[in-house]
């Protein structure tokens, strides 16, 4: 299979005005992914599926990631001249990462027997602008998985044929897989609490007998 850089340049040639970015991966798997902008998500997906060399005809996995706003600190060493002597000085660079939700798709080709190519789509923010194009019209296997992302992360997939909750009930208001989700306070009976559970169970422990 082509490298991700080659795929990226071929998409850029085929889809006009598309914005792509290769997301590095520091983990041992080093599985890099391609960040695609929302507006061209569907066009890129169609290209990846229909392209003769790639022919990614199977989406094995679609999942969500929640990225709350965070302050990222980066340390790097700079050579500076201090009192006439050149020294290595450590500097800290702080950047604010805005909050967004992300949908990740793992694509394979059954016919060419290669893959995965991983693409990501990001929403504008986590609150009101949480829309992404649905890739279900391109890969039918995304149907239930996009419903699950909608259910648990709250990403609204435009163009999905049947977007409704799949694991929780229809009247449910929360998104349980978001990092700021707070579970209902039913910690009144915790025989072996620890960590976060202990903190929440303590409010109920006033009635407990201490021996």
């Amino acid at each position, binding site marked *: 299979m082509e490298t991700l850089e080659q795929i990226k340049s071929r998409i850029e040639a085929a889809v006009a005005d598309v914005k792509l970015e290769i997301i590095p991966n520091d983990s041992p798997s080093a599985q890099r992914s391609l960040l695609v902008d929302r507006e061209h998500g569907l066009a890129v997906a169609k290209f990846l599926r229909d392209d003769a060399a790639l022919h990614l005809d199977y989406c094995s996995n679609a999942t969500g990631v929640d990225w709350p706003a965070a302050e990222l600190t980066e340390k790097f060493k700079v050579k500076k001249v201090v009192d006439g002597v050149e020294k290595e000085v450590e500097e800290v660079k702080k950047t604010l990462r805005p909050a967004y939700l992300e949908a990740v798709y793992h694509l394979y080709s059954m016919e060419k027997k290669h893959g995965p190519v991983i693409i990501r789509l990001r929403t504008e923010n986590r609150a009101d602008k949480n829309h992404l194009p649905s890739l279900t019209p391109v890969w039918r296997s995304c149907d239930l998985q996009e419903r699950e992302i909608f259910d648990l992360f709250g990403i609204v997939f435009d163009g999905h044929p049947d977007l409704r909750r799949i694991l929780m009930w229809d009247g449910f208001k929360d998104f349980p897989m978001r990092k700021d989700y707070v*579970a*209902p306070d*039913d910690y009144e*009976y915790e025989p072996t609490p620890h960590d976060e559970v202990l903190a929440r169970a303590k409010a*109920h422990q006033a009635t407990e*007998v201490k*021996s």
Partner: protein
Amino acid sequence: MDEGLKSELQKQGVFTTTLEEVYNWGRKNSVWPLQFGLACCAIEMIATSMARYDLARFGAEVFRPSPRQADLMIVAGTVTKKMAPQVVRLYNQMPEPKYVIAMGACAISGGPFKQGYNVLKGIDRYIPVDVHIPGCPPRPEALLHAFMTLQQKISDQELTGVNRPRHLNAELPSEFPVPAFGEHDLEPPNNPAVWQAPALTRA
């Protein structure tokens, strides 16, 4: 009747019994479970009913597909919050006398999913449970033991007096409120008439 006199009479060829004993003996040896399973514990329940462990020895091999014909509900597996109202509704549809065995860690407490957002922390929060079986999943022997415990419980029931069972006491309810799907959790999160947090003693 006095046990000594009873065995003395038996030696003389006179067999005596009470209506209560015969009635309970009949009931405890034909407990028909409701045929439904919720998760992996159901596989152990099925194994228990098959030839190797043979639940038929206890008169309970007839798993009924309708709650109207069942006496026993074996809650075998994880009760998710989405499934809990249906489980309570099935219990309400069973005729009295009815019994419940909560099988496995999930059914008795939520098990490994206790701190999750989607699993009920024990079915005993909504319906009265007669026998709890721990285990993940419990072995078929554990289910058989729970079954024998339930049989003992049935044969010990007094048919008259203040301690008479629920099905002979018109004042006690045979149906329990079905929880509703709320915006954040089931409403109510438990039935206080059935379940209250047990008092814990911490060292």
